[in-house]
């Protein structure tokens, strides 16, 4: 894994990034690296500093200190060349409401400095399912449609890096699935690098290969999504019918080492994956009726905790 990472080209490299808004430190000594071909999940609760970081990546705001390198060059000194290789949605996608979807894309296409053909504009509109509404004014669009149009504008100039800030916000489940499918398509079929911010762990888990969790502007956890989410230890809740009997069984056996806590009839154990079925069998063999077994990954618990704190 390490050799693989070392061999890969760094598309985004952030070192010791800090952003202060007067007395508020929005981003605090953040470090991260995104490699070519990554779908990188940038996870954190609302107000964690995700959008602020993305704005700094795109030079919409200046960092207080630290370095941002994109495609190997500092964004501050090579802004135009770097932005030519990036497509982005920053927070909610806003457009010129008095213009049509097509005209908005045409204007944004011209700003990229590349010749964007009519067929290319229609192609990206088709990709996001808006080709039939190409001539409608954007002010008539729902939030979900604007979100799709935001995605379309980010793909318009065929960028190498696509930065998506909460791209599924406001979408219905079907719309969310379509966006996830599109992200997978862009990554797998087109070889794009994606930087995906979200406050939903499950969403990142479904599409990303690497991720970072930030909270209060600082990185908390970073690594391979599979490694982080399939960590050996799981917190498993067993909902049983006989609380007293289960307590006795636990204290008589080696399972007391794995026991963490209980709330009435719900017992929580810290188990490895293969131990779940063993404990289940042990309890059933001792005539305990089990109504639910709910495994929870410790990262999920952790993320839930910081999300609750933030809200």
């Amino acid at each position, binding site marked *: 894994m390490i050799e693989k990472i070392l061999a890969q080209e760094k598309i985004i490299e952030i070192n010791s990034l800090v952003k202060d808004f007067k007395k508020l430190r929005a981003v605090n000594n953040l470090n991260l690296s995104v490699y070519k071909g990554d779908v990188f999940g940038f996870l954190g609760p609302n107000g964690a500093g995700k959008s602020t970081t993305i704005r700094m990546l795109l030079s919409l705001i200046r960092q207080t200190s630290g370095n941002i390198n994109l495609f190997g060059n500092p964004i501050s000194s090579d802004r135009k060349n770097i932005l030519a290789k990036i497509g982005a949605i920053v927070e909610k996608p806003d*457009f010129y409401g008095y213009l049509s979807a097509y005209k908005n894309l045409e204007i944004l296409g011209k700003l990229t400095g590349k010749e964007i053909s009519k067929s290319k504009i229609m192609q990206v509109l088709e990709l996001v399912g808006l080709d039939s509404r190409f001539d409608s004014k954007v002010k008539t669009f729902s939030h979900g449609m604007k979100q799709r149009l935001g995605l379309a504008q980010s793909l318009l100039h065929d960028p190498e890096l696509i930065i998506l800030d909460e791209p599924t916000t406001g979408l219905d489940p079907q719309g969310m699935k379509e966006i996830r499918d599109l992200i997978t398509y862009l990554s797998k079929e087109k070889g794009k690098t994606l930087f995906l911010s979200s406050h939903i762990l499950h969403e990142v888990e479904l599409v990303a290969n690497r991720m970072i969790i930030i909270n209060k502007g600082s990185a908390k956890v970073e690594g391979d999504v599979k490694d982080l989410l399939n960590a050996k230890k799981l917190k498993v809740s067993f909902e049983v019918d006989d609380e007293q009997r289960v307590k006795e069984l636990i204290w008589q056996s080696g399972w007391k080492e794995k026991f963490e806590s209980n709330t009435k009839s719900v017992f929580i154990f810290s188990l490895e994956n293969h131990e779940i079925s063993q404990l289940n069998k042990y309890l059933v063999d001792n005539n305990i009726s089990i109504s639910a077994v709910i495994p929870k990954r410790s990262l999920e618990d952790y993320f839930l905790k910081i999300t609750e704190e933030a809200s």
Partner: protein
Amino acid sequence: MLTLVQIELYKIFKKWRTYIGFIAIGVLVLVIQIAFKYEGQDTINYFTRNIRQSFVFVGNLLNGYLVAFLIMNSLAIHIPFLITLVAGDLLAGEATAGTYRMILTRPVSRTQIIFSKFIAGIIYTALLILWLAVSSLAAGLLVFGTGELLVLNNQIIIIFEQSDILWRFLAAYGFAALCMSVVTALAFLFSSMVENAIGPIISTMAVIIVFVILSALNIEFFQNIKPYFFTNYLLSWKLFFDDPVDLSEVLKAITVMLIHIIFFFSLTLFLFRRKDILS
């Protein structure tokens, strides 16, 4: 840069607020022309009643030139308000709509954005003055015909021959466009500071009103600095209807205007290049 200016002009002329100025000027000019058509001769007779005892007036005094001159005299001071409707929205409108995020994440420098928007604003301003010229002078000449222009300037009546009038109007309209460009530059500056177009509109008008009041105060300090206020020259287009035209005064006015435009624009550029885009 040309593409960027075209985009900005396209956006400006796709907004209905852009046409408020054109409609307002068109309606006002029409109303004034209708009024002059029916009562203009009586008005001229009233204002010239004293000198008619000593002079005999021949020819068409109520002509397109006189009507255009009077219209410009009435409207020039009010046009800044119409200009701020668009100029105040040039940058603040992007912030309000949230579209800064879209355009500033493209490979275009902030300097290019500022230049293209400012140039588009100046073109809009020039077109508004051109519309004033076309609607008042061209239409006036069609309706009222030509003739000599009688102007009362500092209690002195000056009569310009027909062949000596048109260039004065063209120069006056050009000068007015420059004056209004200062207003555009000021509104543009305020527009770069806020996220709502109402602020720049009110702020620009407030600055104009404050400076006009300060200029009018009969206090030596203000009288000394008055020549440096751009508001002092909002009606200086009339210099072209002096005989002879005081070129040194015209040049001074143009210099003060240009310095203001350069100062306001440079400050806008400086602030915008450093601005954190949070909208």
